[in-house]
């Protein structure tokens, strides 16, 4: 049979349409990370007395006479599509309160003392359980009693339709969020959209969301394998893992399976480790304060299992002869608040000879080949009073120290060589014990990546040494995060305090500080410790506060900054400072050596 061109097109069109029908619909619904257990979820409802608006004598537009009846019909809409859970309403007779573990639904002109504000019709207050974070604790729904309400179907009218707002708020109360405001917003018709259209009832996307949450029985998760309890020493690498029903846990938590790490230190209370979201709890280099009980909780709204892991950590003695050497920082150096400033402390009784380098152009050449390097850094060395001790622009010219001496000192210190015509900056100076800063700037607004290094090159046999490092600079993303390096040199371990300071800089007049710092410590290329917020776990905060006081470090004012007390064995370490969720801003990284 021969087919005409139009017949072929028609068949192709039918085939494409048929294929299109077979393609599964990509749902847009968005859910919380917690839900209700199977069974009945009860809402205590008081919508017909107290602050409830009066129902007109001629009834509401849909013929009902009570708001509670309208609310029940909204619950019924959801119940049609829920399998493992049903929603029920009972009268609320007590005064509403929060948090009390009761789902209360009522009219009021405020939300537990907070005014609704301009233009707000209703609000849902969903709370997960603190002990079982996969489960709801309560979900109150409060309607603004000062608004003009009615109940009707179809296009929106002058009064607000209580029923569709109730359907939407109940959706929040069972764990659905706005599909159009999801992390990847989608364009779909839904009652759960942030913008309520003339849609007055549940539609396919809402139903798909309800089905995903409550459409089937949830499996009972069982931890089948978990890391053994162990006795470690300070400096051992520790991580804990587990399996669920013989399988590695998924990287992403779902409503069917969430997992949470808890820690109870010796004599402390149990803390939820909220910044550790991975299935593997990677503690890194063990410290004495890590000793205690670690609990892995796996759960969904219907079931849970947990296992404890005990960790003992044997202390090691601090080695007084060990010290920091070869301090360096790689960061973005710009102008004004983005200027890069490195601070260091020389402690002891005798002058110390130091080599300080600000390397930009050489980083752009082989073998480094870094993009975006500073084209021409200038280095200024100042003492604590701000007196300029020395400056240098191009290391091989107009320098107080001959280029050959700088080259020799660099080679002796183990620093990479600079080409003779590079525009990197270098200073060699003999400094009395005290606090110094090396500032990197550029001519005519030049900016870019630069590495600043301070080497102890003293061969006089004196007892002075570099003890603290700090760098203030701009933290960007990717290559522009700040990286500080230090070498722990000596016969044994030594204890340090490492900090990434962001918000507290605001108290020192720096407005564009980095909000929510993250500190990651590497030994070589291996990550050996991670700190997001210094209050996780909260029971470590008193120890850190005491350490800061002992070292004279200014107090941190924000819980989202990073601090770590850590005993390090000799070796090279790098400290990466970044912003949580790729925030950018000015940060200060510090490394303090604890006194003997």
């Amino acid at each position, binding site marked *: 049979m021969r087919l005409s061109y139009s017949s072929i097109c028609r068949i192709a069109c039918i085939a494409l349409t048929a294929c299109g029908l077979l393609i599964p619909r990509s749902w847009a619904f968005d859910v919380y990370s917690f839900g209700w257990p199977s069974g009945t979820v009860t809402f205590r409802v008081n919508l017909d007395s107290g602050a409830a608006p009066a129902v007109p004598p001629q009834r509401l537009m849909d013929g009902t006479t009570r708001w509670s009846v309208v609310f029940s019909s909204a619950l019924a809409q959801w119940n049609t599509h829920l399998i493992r859970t049903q929603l029920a309403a009972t009268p609320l007779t007590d005064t509403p309160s*929060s948090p009390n573990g009761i789902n209360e639904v009522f009219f009021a002109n*405020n*939300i*537990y*003392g*907070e*005014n*609704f*504000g*301009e*233009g*707000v*019709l*209703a*609000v*849902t*207050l*969903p*709370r*997960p359980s603190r002990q079982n*974070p996969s489960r709801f604790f309560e979900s109150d729904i409060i309607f603004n009693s000062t608004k003009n309400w009615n109940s009707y179907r179809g296009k*929106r*009218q*002058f009064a607000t*339709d209580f029923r*569709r*707002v109730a359907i*939407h*708020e109940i959706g*929040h109360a069972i764990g659905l*969020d*706005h599909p*159009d*405001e999801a992390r990847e*917003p*989608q*364009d779909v018709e839904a009652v759960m*959209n*942030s*913008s*309520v*259209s003339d849609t007055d009832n549940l539609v396919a996307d809402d139903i798909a969301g309800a089905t995903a949450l409550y459409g089937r029985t949830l499996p009972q998760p069982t931890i089948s394998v978990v890391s053994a309890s162990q006795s470690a020493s300070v400096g051992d690498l520790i991580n804990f893992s587990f399996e669920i029903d013989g399988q590695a846990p998924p990287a992403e938590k779902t409503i069917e399976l969430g997992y949470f790490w808890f820690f109870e230190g010796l004599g402390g209370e149990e803390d*939820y*480790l*909220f910044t550790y979201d991975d299935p593997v709890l990677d503690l890194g280099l063990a410290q004495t304060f890590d000793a205690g009980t670690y609990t892995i909780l796996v759960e969904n709204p219907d079931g849970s299992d947990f296992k404890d892991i005990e960790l003992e950590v044997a202390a090691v003695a601090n080695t007084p002869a060990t010290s920091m050497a070869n301090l360096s920082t790689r960061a973005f150096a710009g102008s004004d608040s983005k200027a890069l400033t490195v601070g260091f402390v020389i402690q002891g009784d005798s002058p110390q000879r130091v080599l300080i380098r600000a390397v930009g152009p050489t980083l752009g050449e082989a073998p480094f080949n870094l993009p975006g390097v500073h084209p021409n850094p200038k280095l200024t060395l100042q003492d604590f009073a701000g007196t300029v001790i020395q400056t240098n622009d191009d290391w091989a010219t107009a320098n107080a120290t001959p280029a050959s001496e700088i080259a020799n000192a660099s080679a002796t210190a183990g620093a990479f060589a600079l080409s003779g015509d590079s525009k990197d900056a270098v200073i060699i100076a003999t400094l009395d014990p005290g606090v110094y800063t090396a500032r990197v700037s550029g001519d005519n607004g030049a900016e870019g990546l630069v590495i600043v290094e301070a080497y102890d090159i003293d061969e006089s046999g004196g007892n002075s040494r570099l003890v603290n490092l700090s760098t203030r600079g701009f933290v960007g993303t990717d290559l522009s995060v700040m990286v500080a390096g230090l070498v722990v040199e000596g016969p044994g371990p030594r204890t340090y305090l490492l900090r990434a300071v962001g*918000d507290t800089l605001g108290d020192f007049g720096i*407005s*564009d*500080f980095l*909000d*929510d710092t993250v500190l990651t410590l590497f030994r070589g290329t291996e990550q050996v410790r991670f700190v997001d*917020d210094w*209050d*996780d776990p909260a029971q470590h905060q008193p120890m850190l506060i005491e350490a800061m006081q002992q070292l004279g470090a200014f107090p941190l004012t*924000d819980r*989202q900054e990073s601090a770590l007390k850590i005993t390090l064995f000799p070796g090279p370490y790098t400290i990466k400072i970044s912003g949580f*969720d790729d*925030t*950018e*801003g000015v940060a200060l990284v510090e490394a303090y050596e604890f006194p003997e």
Partner: protein
Amino acid sequence: MQFSQLRLSLFFSLALLLGSAAPLSALSVVVPTFSDLVTKSDQIVRGQVVRVESRRTINAAGYELIKTFVSIRPTEIPKGESSSAVVLSFLGGSVAGEKFEIPGMPKFKKGDRAWFFIKGNGSTLCPLISGPHGAYREVKDPTTNELRVVRYDGSAMASSEAIERPPVNQGSVRSLSSSPPLTPAIFRAAIYRELDRPPPPLPLLEQP
């Protein structure tokens, strides 16, 4: 036309006008008009978010609640009390693993630049008029690298009058280049024009 008929017509027009403003839910809120935003706000602030912090607080009614405080460094305050710093207080947030997130409550990150239409800051659950409708971000057009004013959710607007209209076909309007630009200068001029507008005449009242 009888006066009562005139009043009925006026009411009908008003009903149509208000009916066309979609009520939003989330926080279930009512979409404001641009005029609402300007006239009802206590303060209008153009500025940059410099700090976002959530913490537990106890309010005047004695309830312990998590609130999120968004500090703004104003670059311009077209309306309201002049200040070098504005801190907006939002109900909800997350503190040390305890979550109290209110669906639909606007969220900001340090570095965000926006216009904020503020009312009842400190005493309301959301200090912005109609929640997310009370903030308009300034973002760079990825094509032209010029600043544009967009809705809180990032969707584009062609003019300040578009505020009262919900985004249409949201998937495509998020593409900034797909609509004419609303620049900060145009938005700013519209705000000052609205501020300079004389108040509307008092409504006619029926004679007793």
